């Protein structure tokens, strides 16, 4: 039983990393959103699984949030934003796909190296989980910094945050997990609203119109 539990958890976590890679690979917006939705679903699954094996019911809430909010609400909202702002569909990347993938590999390797140092005293499940979580976090950051497009950066941030939730739920009996996931969902909501409110089209750092492109502080 325990082995099975371990394997499933492992599988799900690994799946997250894999999906992160798919995100890195994607260069079409809608597809990216769909993949992110998948990411969220898998996260929800793994959280739920954790809830089951740690028999910690409150984690189900987190799973639910992940499922509803991240897998459905946000992607839909972003779809509409893309339509309304008329963001054109394909993402121009700062770094081309190939090197990005390589960098991703490197990051995963790095996180493995770091985490496998951890003494076996910490229970293996947590350990593996952390390794995966760390890689998901790093990959999320990678997405953020390699994509020029606002929406995809939001997506990157959310995947990063998925990694956090994964880690948090992997940690046995960690308090405040639910609160944290809620807080983060709100944060993301803020960002999405911000993107919509300031009608950020292309780059993350230009609010509304070109007039502001000049403004980088003092460049007046």
């Amino acid at each position, binding site marked *: 039983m325990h082995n099975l539990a371990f394997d499933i958890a492992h599988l799900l976590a690994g799946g997250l990393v894999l999906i992160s890679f798919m995100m890195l690979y994607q260069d079409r917006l809608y597809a990216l959103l769909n993949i992110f939705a998948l990411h969220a679903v898998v996260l929800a699954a793994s959280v739920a699984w954790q809830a089951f094996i740690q028999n910690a019911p409150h984690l189900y809430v987190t799973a639910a949030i992940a499922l509803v909010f991240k897998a459905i609400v946000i992607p839909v909202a972003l779809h509409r934003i893309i339509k309304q702002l008329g963001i054109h569909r394909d993402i121009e990347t700062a770094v081309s796909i190939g090197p990005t993938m390589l960098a991703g590999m490197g990051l995963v390797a790095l996180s493995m190296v*770091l*985490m496998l*140092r*951890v*003494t076996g*005293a*910490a*229970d293996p499940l*947590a350990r593996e989980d*952390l390794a995966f*979580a*760390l890689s998901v*976090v790093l990959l999320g*950051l990678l997405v*953020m910094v390699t994509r020029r497009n606002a929406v995809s950066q939001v997506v990157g*941030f959310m995947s*990063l*945050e998925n*990694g*956090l939730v994964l*880690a*948090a739920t992997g*940690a*046995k*009996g*960690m*308090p*405040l997990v639910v*609160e*944290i996931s809620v*807080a983060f969902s709100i*944060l993301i909501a*803020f*960002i999405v609203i*911000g993107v919509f409110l*300031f009608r950020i089209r292309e780059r*993350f*750092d*230009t*609010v*509304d119109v070109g*007039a*502001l492109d000049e*403004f980088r*502080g*003092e460049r007046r």
Partner: protein
Amino acid sequence: MTAASDAVAWVLLIPICAAATLAALPGYRLTAGINILASLGTLLAALSLFVIERPQPGQYLLIDDLNIVFIVLNTFVGFTTSVFSASYIAHELETGRLTPGYLRFYHAMYQVMMFGMNLAFVSNNIGLMWVAVEIATLTTVLMVGIYRTHAALEAAWKYFILGSVGIALALFGTILVYMAALPVIGEGLDAMVWTVLISRAATFDPALLNVAFIFLLLGYGTKVGLAPLHAWLPDAHAEGPTPISAVLSGLLLNVALYAVLRFKILLAVNPDAISPGPLMVTMGLTSLLFAAFMLYRRRDIKRLFAYSSIEHMGIIVFAFGMGGPLANFAGLLHMVMHSLTKSGIFYAVGHITQVKGTQRIANIRGLTETHPALGWSLVIGVVAIAGLPPLGIFMSEFLIVSSTFARQPLLAIPLVFGLLLAFGALFLRLTSLAFGEPRGNAAPADASYLPMFAHFALVLTAGIYLPGPLVVWFQHVANLLG
């Protein structure tokens, strides 16, 4: 005991209740008054913490020697800033940069922010501390964007995005700490309670702690404004209302620093973990040198002092990184002095920008002639921040440099170099601001000098005479910092 916990409760309750009421109330005079009163109340509550005996550290709240210093400093500057902001905001209303609606929001947010910071200080729970820091950050984000100009919005946006990434990193670090504690302490809330953690930290898994510390250093370091994570800081200072700039420089940075320190202590307890010193020293020096160079090209007066904040944060982190009783003492002293001085400077700068109607350094000349009070206080402020005697920062810099040179001569060279660079830049600007042919509006300013003078008076006395009890206190804390 009960009285004590009450005091702690007051420190948190007053701001939050005040926030609620202020959100509801209209009218400038009333709200500003309430704001001041609330801040004063919080200050008194914080001061009362000195006299009454400590409560037992609970699962959430904690009062110990380290954080009480921060709390008192925090509430004090919060109070003076509220006084300053009263007169400042009045002017903003006249010029119509702020509408009453936003004003209400402003005051409410101010109190929420104070609440967040106090909470961060008193929290005995790393999770709670994280939440508190984030509350403080988000509120300041909203305040920075309050003018709704493009510049302000973008500054706020930048702050927000970088901040949230910082949040994420800090959280991951927190989780890692919990994971490290898990095998030793067991599941549940205890594994996040600071006092418990510190008592058992020696047996934690070092590898986890190391990774955790890096994430925490970067996460909270983003808010400390360490280069190269500083990007949000200058714009946030420059575009927000000046009271917020004062609070940012004087307080929020300290909050983040406090968090970093907590975890430094945690790591210091564990023998196998990496010593956080070298990391902090490196980042400190980087920030110092970087900011020192950046100071030369500044054209906006508020951004200038924002960068000087980065520089001083670098010095402080450097000092704590060096460790040892002298350096830690110096670091604490430097932190307190910097908060007082820098907020004082921002008070002066706020009035100056209001009366001159510009933040461009090029358009401000000969202040000592047109506005002697403001001009000379600016001079005093810069003299203080540049580390000239007889003001407080001189003492801390003296201790830092001399002790560093005695222990690590090679580290002292870049340190001294950075100090000199920053010095040169600051005075280059000061000479053009305070002296020379007057330029710009010469109308008399209706300013509230009291907070400014209070701060500088404190800094001056500290530079010449530090009261014995305070010193003992600091030394105790310094040893506690290891």
